[in-house]
């Protein structure tokens, strides 16, 4: 029982992070039908920028650690919003009317460029998160949970609620949903589709930045390649929920986190010790294959042909 609760907690933490990144994929896809493969790298930059700010401020300023963490997080969010905006402006907008393969290849290209830029700036070393947060452990139903895990889950849920309200209750959100349905029609309403597309990339970048910092703070060192696997996992989560669907990305992320966590937790028992928890990644991609084969529209995906 305690293993079950433990894996549930681990899965929720992992899943919250996946969900935040998956939202960036799904929102962009919803509007442009483009898979922004450089989004994982935006997340990586979020972690790197926050880390750089933290290290600089810890060394040179006498500010309280939590304030420094706040500044680092806000700095990373700001940077990634600009990065998301710049990506769209430089790499995707010129290809808006090109065949769909072109922006896809560009996205992969941007991903490689961003990785290499990060490598040039921060080198190939694994960079650890400084000890800012004193870890406290609590015990729930025989399982351990740390204050950091609680903060990650709560912050992710809070962000997702805010995003949901933004999309469904504000003027900008209405314009985003309208543009997702038909940019041409949205333009007839006086909406400038380019403004909405830029806003979408910026929101996605902000969510990615938060997720990157969480990964660095919770799972371990930041590295210039960290965005690749994170991006793939989050993309899987977005497909699992139904790409283009925002609620789907939230639940897809959480579900994928739980699947990985329970899979890794129980695979040892199930295979009699033949396979260990290092097979964790297998589950995500197994899920991706199953979804693509049996339900390509995802769990929350919309049926095709709704515009009849």
């Amino acid at each position, binding site marked *: 029982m305690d293993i079950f609760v433990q894996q549930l907690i681990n899965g929720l933490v992992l899943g919250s992070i996946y969900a935040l990144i998956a939202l960036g994929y799904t929102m962009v896809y919803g509007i442009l039908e483009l898979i922004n493969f450089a989004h994982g790298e935006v997340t990586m930059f979020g972690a790197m920028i926050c880390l750089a700010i933290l290290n600089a401020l810890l060394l040179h300023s006498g500010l309280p650690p939590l304030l420094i963490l706040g500044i680092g997080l806000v700095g990373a969010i700001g940077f990634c919003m600009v990065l998301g905006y710049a990506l769209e402006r430089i790499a995707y907008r010129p290809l808006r009317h090109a065949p769909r393969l072109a922006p896809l290849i560009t996205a992969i290209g941007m991903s490689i460029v961003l990785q290499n830029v990060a490598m040039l700036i921060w080198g190939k070393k694994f960079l650890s998160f400084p000890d800012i947060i004193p870890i406290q452990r609590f015990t729930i139903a025989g399982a351990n949970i740390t204050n950091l895990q609680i903060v990650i889950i709560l912050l992710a849920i809070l962000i997702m609620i805010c995003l949901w309200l933004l999309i469904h209750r504000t*003027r900008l959100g*209405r*314009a985003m*949903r*309208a543009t997702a*349905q*038909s940019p*041409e*029609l*949205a*333009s*007839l*309403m*006086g*909406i*400038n*589709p380019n403004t909405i597309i830029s806003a979408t990339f910026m929101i996605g970048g902000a969510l990615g930045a938060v997720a990157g910092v969480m990964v660095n703070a919770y799972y371990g060192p930041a590295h210039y390649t960290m965005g690749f696997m994170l991006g793939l996992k989050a993309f899987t989560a977005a497909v699992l929920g139904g790409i283009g669907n925002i609620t789907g990305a939230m639940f897809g992320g959480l579900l994928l986190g739980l699947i990985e966590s329970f899979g890794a937790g129980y695979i040892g028992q199930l295979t009699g010790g033949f396979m260990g928890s290092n097979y964790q990644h297998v589950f995500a991609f197994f899920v991706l294959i199953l979804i693509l084969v049996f339900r390509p529209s995802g769990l929350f995906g919309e049926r095709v042909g*709704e*515009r009849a």
Partner: protein
Amino acid sequence: MLQVENLSVAYGAVNAVKSIDLQIAAGELVCLIGANGAGKTTTLKTLGGMLKPQHGRIEYFDQSICGLPSHELLQRGIALVPEGRGIFSRLSVRENLQLGAYSRNDAAGITQDLEQMFTLFPRLAERAGQIAGTLSGGEQQMLAIARALMSRPKLLLLDEPSMGLAPVMVQKIFQTIRDIAAAGVTILLVEQNAKLALQISQRGYVMENGRITLTDAAPALLANPQVQHAYLGG
């Protein structure tokens, strides 16, 4: 108010509209009639900023608006109700109407106009919270017109509002168009149903193969044997 000179529009190699001239004065209700494929919708889409003209001049209040995108034209008071209704089917009726007022920022005025639309179209009030895709064809057309009115347009471009609607519904929609015109909105109406369109319009243009072949006061066009023969089933 609107002055179009020598306007040509092409889809790739196909010249859909060939150097047409068109004028609309403030407060007029003008219709553009013609057979399927004559270039009526292309003309309207170009005036609404959805298509870029090949050459020609479009002047609106003595300013060139040629080539401006739809969202900028809307801010200047030109609203287009597209063919086939073009509502946001996944959004609610209320949200569709709110989107119509996207370019405005007078919250009080928007609320007031929303209430006015609901009085004008009671069906929409009943279904305010419903997803717009579940409305009937006639209701969707009403929603599309009401949504355009939410932007408080000076010039309303209507593309085939009668398309695919039951006769009773068509009567209702045309009555609505007449009311809107009576309220002072200038209207350019594109219609295949030439008789109905001419009955409510002051002036009409007849379009054939991308050219304007005839223009006159609406009653004169209704009485014109050529028009009667070609478009009025006489």
